[in-house]
């Protein structure tokens, strides 16, 4: 992997988000929904706490629909328009292209997340929150977004059809969320503890909520990073196998 090539591809990808209204629509929806979730559904004011836990609690659900909308075009569009043939006959490797596209999508999500800073200002205005916990929340949210994006990247590589890519990504991501849900875990209550724990350990929620609480455990970080690596690896393999179709 050559950093120079990744950075050139990254730049092109990231600016392509802003070449169309997609970026702005995405950001507006993201901010709007964050607000709704936090202030209405999250009972932000009623709780009377000066923190952002209500805000972060809803991020998995926010990402469930927004991230697939972002990743559906990642590879599907390249395949559909044929530009993949141009891209992969330039002096870049598939790995570099996969990483660059992923990083651009991640950077874009970071920008959207960054634009929620008025929330952070609001809680600091209203009270004296633990800003370290809030920082951990942002970190956890970014890591989880990365995992969603990497899954989306793989699935976008599987098809030329963006709608199909969207739907399958939502379903796969949902599985990763639900496996930590107490309802789902209850369903497996007959099974030995170890199995229940394994299922739950695969969940975004388990790891995400532990980071959001302000407990930055290396294992949670490793969990997300290895998930990202795994799915990006899959993306590269899928592209290698399916690029000609």
């Amino acid at each position, binding site marked *: 992997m050559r950093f120079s090539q990744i950075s*050139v591809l990254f*730049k*092109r990808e990231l600016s392509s988000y802003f070449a*169309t209204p997609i970026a702005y629509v995405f950001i507006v929806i993201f901010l709007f929904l964050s607000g709704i979730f936090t202030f209405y559904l999250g009972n932000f004011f009623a709780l009377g706490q000066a923190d952002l836990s209500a805000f972060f609690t809803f991020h998995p659900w926010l990402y469930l629909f927004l991230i697939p909308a972002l990743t559906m075009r990642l590879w599907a569009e390249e395949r559909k328009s044929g530009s993949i043939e*141009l891209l992969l*006959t330039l*002096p870049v490797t598939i790995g570099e292209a996969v990483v660059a596209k992923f990083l651009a999508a991640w950077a874009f999500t970071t920008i959207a997340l960054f634009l929620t800073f008025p929330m952070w200002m609001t809680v600091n205005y209203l009270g004296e929150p633990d800003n370290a916990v809030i920082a951990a929340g942002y970190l956890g949210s970014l890591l989880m977004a990365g995992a969603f994006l990497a899954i989306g990247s793989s699935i976008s590589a599987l098809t030329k059809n963006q709608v199909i890519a969207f739907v399958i990504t939502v379903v796969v991501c949902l599985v990763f969320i639900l496996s930590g849900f107490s309802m789902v875990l209850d369903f497996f209550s007959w099974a030995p503890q170890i199995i229940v724990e394994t299922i739950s350990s695969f969940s975004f929620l388990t790891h995400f909520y532990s980071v959001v609480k302000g407990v930055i455990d290396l294992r949670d970080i490793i969990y997300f990073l290895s998930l990202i690596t795994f799915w990006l690896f899959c993306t590269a393999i899928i592209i290698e196998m399916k690029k*000609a179709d």
Partner: protein
Amino acid sequence: MVNIKNLYKEFGSLMAVDDISFQVNRGEVLGFLGPNGAGKSTTMKMITGFLTPSSGSVSVDGDDIVNDPIKVKQRLGYLPEGAPAYPDMTTIAFLDFIAEVRGFKGREKSRRVDETIQRVNLDKVVYQSIDTLSKGFKRRVGLAQAILHDPDVLILDEPTDGLDPNQKHEVRNLIQNMAKEKVIILSTHILEEVHAVCNRAIIITNGKIVADGTPTELEAKSQYHNSITISVRAAADQANELRKSLLEVSGVYKLEALSEGDSGLLTYQVFPEANRSIIAEISQHIHQQKWEIEEMFVNKGRLDDVFRTITTGV
């Protein structure tokens, strides 16, 4: 310089490329001819490293495209079929991107980009986004992208497809101007193009090479090669006599009437026996018979005729 050895590509049960081997050297402009579905694009995709061959190898100066892809790709320029690009980028942003991927920076980058824009006449659309460009301009953007780094090997998949005659002419000029220092492989199904730009042609059909030679050599395979078209001023009722007399000339194999109407002109195509030239004999015969000749010329042969014969087996 470019060495292609026993190349195969299977798609399921279909053998799209079936044992293709050839070598191309600097200065050669190789026309890749064949009907639709012959395997031209598939071969080019393997040469440029987009597809991995089922077996066989492609190398440029000894470097293998599968084992050393980056090194080879740096020396290749490729215009894929249909000239795909990133539609929401402007021409200039796209070429800047290509230049950066090709490793150019700073002043060298702007110089390359400007120079290429001049070369393919893109000045008018520099700030226009690619999806709003006409087909001709899109194709030129594709060409610009392929030649920006002055590659040693240029692979062009149907570079003039869908262009108007002026645009075709421009693209051919461009190719000719680059021909000397490069290897150029272009696919086409327009046969006049082969004459216009290629000094070698390979005809493929069903994934196999069925002819390989200079355009002139290929034309010589035509049944029209060295045939003579002759128009004699004579009345229609003299036709039978004229035919008989022509067929008696030594070396004449057969003849076809092109027009025997009442226009006062009888026109024939006279075919020689294999590998013979009969112009001298025919001239002499005309002279002896004191025929009044309106027109007479030797045919070099027609590439499209060769193409049809070879690719359909008729």
